[in-house]
C-alpha cells in the first residue's frame, strides 16, 4: 500500500510467513524482506510482503492518526469510465 498503515503480527508461520491483523482481518504475508520480527510487532505491508518493521510506539501513533482522520482521508471514490 502507498500508505504506511501498520499491521500487527499475530502469528509467525513456517517459511518466513506470518499472519498480520489488518483492520481485524487476518492476512498472510511474507517476512522475507524484514529482519527479526516477533509476534506483537508492527510491520508495513505492500502486496503481500512486509517491508518495514516499526516499533510499537511509532505504530500506535500512526494508527491513531489514521483512525482520527480516516474519514476525511478516504472519501467515497468516484467511478471513472473509459
Amino acid at each position, binding site marked *: *500500500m*502507498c*500508505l*504506511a*498503515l501498520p499491521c500487527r503480527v499475530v502469528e509467525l508461520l513456517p517459511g518466513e510467513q506470518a499472519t498480520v491483523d*489488518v*483492520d481485524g482481518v487476518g492476512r498472510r504475508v*511474507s517476512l*522475507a*524482506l524484514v*529482519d527479526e520480527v516477533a509476534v506483537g510487532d508492527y510491520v*508495513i*505491508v*505492500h*502486496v503481500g*510482503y512486509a*517491508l*518495514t518493521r516499526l516499533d510499537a510506539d*511509532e505504530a500506535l*501513533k*500512526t494508527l491513531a*492518526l*489514521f*483512525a482520527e*482522520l*480516516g474519514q*476525511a*482521508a*478516504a*472519501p467515497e*471514490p*468516484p*467511478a*471513472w*469510465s*473509459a
Partner: protein
Amino acid sequence: MHEGSLDLALTWDGKRIVAATVVSKRPQVASLLRGLPAAAVSDRVLQLFGICRQAQAAAAALCVRSARGERLAPGALDELALPVALETISEHLCHLLIAWPSLLADPSRPPRVADCGDWRRRLRAAADRRSAAAVAADLVGWLGEADLPSPGDESPHGAVAPLLPLLPAAEWACMELMEDFALRPNLAGEVAETGTLARQAGAAAITRLLAAGRRIEARLRARLLELHSLAAALADPPRLSALLDARPVRADVGLARVETARGTLLHRLDLAGDGVGHYLIVSPTEWNFHPQGPFVREIGGCPADSRRAARFAAERLALSLDPCVPFSCSFVDA
C-alpha cells in the same frame, strides 16, 4: 481507514477486451497535512507513506523550503537525492525480482525473494555515499549475470498514451495545479504516462522495443536500464540531483518535483503563516491509472480468447505500469 486499491473492470466480448473502467480507491492524504506547522510536514509525510516514503519526504522538505523562499546550499539537493536513489533501486529490485516472477508464475523462474531481501539489506546498511556506491557497483555486476524476467509475447495494442516529458519544477510551477489535478492529472489537457519508460524512452534499446510494439517489455527493460544508471550515479553525486528540484510558485507557495520509482511525484504547499494552508500531492499512479490514461487506452482492443487470457493481459499491463497500491480485475460482459 482502508489501505487503498485500484479496481480494474474489464469489458470482454469473448474475443477481446473492448473497454475498461478504473475505480481508484487511493486515499488522498494531503488533507491530513493541513494546519500542521510547516516544520513538521516532512516528518508527518514519512509517517504517512509506506512506499516511496523517502521520495515523499524529500518532496515535502523541498516544498517547504521553496514556499519559504529559502535557497538551497550547494550540495543540498545531492544530500536529499541519495535516500531517494537508494529507495528507487530497492523498489526496482522488488519489481524485477518478485513482482514479475509472481505474475508470470513460471516454475523455472520463481520469485527471487531471498536475493531481493539480501540486496535491500545491503543497500540499507550502506552508511554513506561511498559505501552505497560500492554496494550498487556489486549490484550492477550481479544484475549482468542475473536471469531476469521476460514478459512474454505481446499482442498489437491499440491507442497508447504519450509519455510525460521530464519537466523541471520551474515548469510545473507555472501551471495552476488545482485539487482536481491530484485525482486526474494531465499536461495541457493531455493524459500521459509517467515512470521508467517515459524517463528512458530516448535509449536506443527502448526506442527499438517501442517501434516493434513491445511496450510492456520496453517498460521492463527501461527499469533495468534505470537501475544501472542510478547505481552508476551513486558514485557521481551531481548526477543524482536531476532526481529532484523545487521552485517557488509565488510568495508563500512552493512546488517540488521528485522522480520516484513509479514516476514523477509533485508536491505543492500553500503556507498560511508558518503552517500548512493547503497541500497537494500528485502521485504517479494517478497519471498511469487515469480514467483516460495509459492503462485504459492500452488495454482497449487487446485480444483475449478466454477470461483467463483477458485477466492475464490486464494484470500484466497493470504491473508494467506499477501502481503504488494493490489492484484487482473484474469482468463486465459486453
